[in-house]
């Protein structure tokens, strides 16, 4: 089992290599460079800087140098923050981003599944319609619209919560988590409702009822597990959505997470910083999907060997 696990983990490496290569190519294809600015640098300084970061080398050499450093676990330097490495910058932002992301995912799972089950238990009644209206809303309002609306309501009008910033207080995360989770809540609620409605039609649910089990027992013990399967397979895409969403949300709420470095890095052509963030996020998503596969097999006895 552990040997097979290791082999499957190694199989994930080509995916990450492809990710790095594509990102590298796209970054260098974008016009401009890290040291282009409104006030031109003196020619001598510019040449010196480019030589220091190997930017004077042909592109394929720069690529090999980056991969060589990467193989040693070195994400390289940041051009904008010369005194700190990319790894240090990401390390500084990751705790905030991880907290934001995991809270949003947990909230989405719990609330989304609960809403989906409630909707499926009362199909076409007001409970169902209310959840579906919420779900359509959550899916159609982009988070860069939702976040300012939340700020406007909760911070500007009601003065109930801070509009942004981060000093470690929990209430500062409430709005960002909500804004990040809402689209996922919507999707998970819809998935859960559809799966639940389907499962409740199966003959084995009829058998469970024929045994005289209470409706609660039928739902929690007999229906929930098959309903979990589609929700769990959605967790991979949900993680990806949450990570990309967090880039925007961190920017809006002024949270010092990895996403902000990504935005700044992309604007400043800070190649190393952008590559580093993409690589970390890519690894997270790939690992998350891998964990989802394992969990899926655990839940469905027919998938086990």
């Amino acid at each position, binding site marked *: 089992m552990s040997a097979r696990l290791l082999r499957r983990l190694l199989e994930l490496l080509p995916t990450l290599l492809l990710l790095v290569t594509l990102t590298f190519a796209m970054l260098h294809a974008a016009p401009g460079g890290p040291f282009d600015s409104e006030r031109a640098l003196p020619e001598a300084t510019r040449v010196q800087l480019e030589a220091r970061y190997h930017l004077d080398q042909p592109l394929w050499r720069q690529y090999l140098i980056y991969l060589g450093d990467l193989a040693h676990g070195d994400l390289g330097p940041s051009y904008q923050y010369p005194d700190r490495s990319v790894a240090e910058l990401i390390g500084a932002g990751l705790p905030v981003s991880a907290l934001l992301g995991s809270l949003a995912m947990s909230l989405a799972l719990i609330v989304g599944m609960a809403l989906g089950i409630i909707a499926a238990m009362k199909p076409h009644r007001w409970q169902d319609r209310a959840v579906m209206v919420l779900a359509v809303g959550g899916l159609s309002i982009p988070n860069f619209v939702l976040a300012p609306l939340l700020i406007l309501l909760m911070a500007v009008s009601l003065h109930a919560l801070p509009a942004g910033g981060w000093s470690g207080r929990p209430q500062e995360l409430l709005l960002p988590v909500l804004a990040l989770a809402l689209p996922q809540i919507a999707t998970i609620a819809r998935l859960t409702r559809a799966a639940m409605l389907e499962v409740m039609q*199966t*003959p*084995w649910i*009829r*058998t*469970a*009822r*024929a*045994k*005289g*089990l*209470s409706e609660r*027992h039928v739902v929690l*013990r*007999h229906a929930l*597990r*098959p309903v979990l399967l589609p929700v769990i397979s959605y967790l991979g895409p949900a993680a990806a959505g949450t990570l990309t969403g967090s880039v925007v949300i961190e920017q809006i709420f002024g949270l010092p997470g990895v996403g902000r470095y990504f935005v700044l890095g992309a604007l400043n052509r800070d190649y190393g910083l952008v590559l580093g963030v993409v690589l970390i996020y890519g690894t997270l998503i790939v690992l998350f999907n891998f964990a989802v596969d394992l969990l899926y097999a655990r*839940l*469905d*006895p*027919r998938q086990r060997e």
Partner: protein
Amino acid sequence: MTTAPLLSVEQLCVAHRTPRGDVEVVSGINLQLEAGGTLAIVGESGSGKSQTALAIMGLNGPSACLTGRVLFDGENLLTASPARRRALRGARIAMVFQDPMASLNPYLRIGLQLAEVLETHRGASRSAAWAEAARTLDSVRVSAARERLNQYPHELSGGMRQRVMIAMAIIAGPQLLIADEPTTALDPTVQAQILALLDELRRDRGLAILLITHDLGVVSRLCEQTLVMYAGKLVESAPTQQLLSRPRHPYTAALLRARPSMQHPPGLRLDALPGQPPDLRQTMPACRFAPRCRYAQPDCADVPLQFERGVLCRHPL
């Protein structure tokens, strides 16, 4: 008759509300079953036989509207509270379904699915329920019962799964077992074993059995009394042997003619009944079978029928 029957269904009607209007799938069924007795309901798909069985269980679903009376041990189930119905279901009235693969939960261990019946109805402890589950599996002759408890349904053969279904139905010691097409999804040899098992349970445990089937061969092996349903109505009721040898309703006769037999000359086509059962949404003639009946007379379509001397027919055979 001195004692009241275990099950007595009186003028049962089942209608389903659909977006295109109500459909009455069972129209005024009467039946009685003694404790320890056997009764078969025969009919083709859509005749209302399964809906009758589900009505006794109270499992027709939210779109169903039931009228009439279903008396179980003197108690009208149609007016009983949902909680009371749940207390009876699985404990005193149990049901076995057609497809044992689809009717067992594929995600849960066999043992859990058996034990939860006892945990629900008797408040049995987990360990006591699992021990009883093993004994019950053993009594329906599932080999290596103790190991089976930890298996999942997909690890068992079709016949084994149906034995598990039967074990699940009898584990709480019910008085009435409703078996809806219990052998249809099984091989012929396994069918015979399952029928023998049901017969044995009737003898040993005094279990009354209501068998729902379209297979007259199955009926002859298990049931004393047989009812024939057509388009939601009861068309004939007779002791099984008499029904098979001297059918009085033309529909019963047609069903018997349509059966393949060992004596049937090879190459000769089976005498299949022409036409289709009526669409229950349409208005039907007085005798719902008249349009397909080879003995139909001009008055069959118009004059209202009474169920008399075991048959619903103006011109019985």
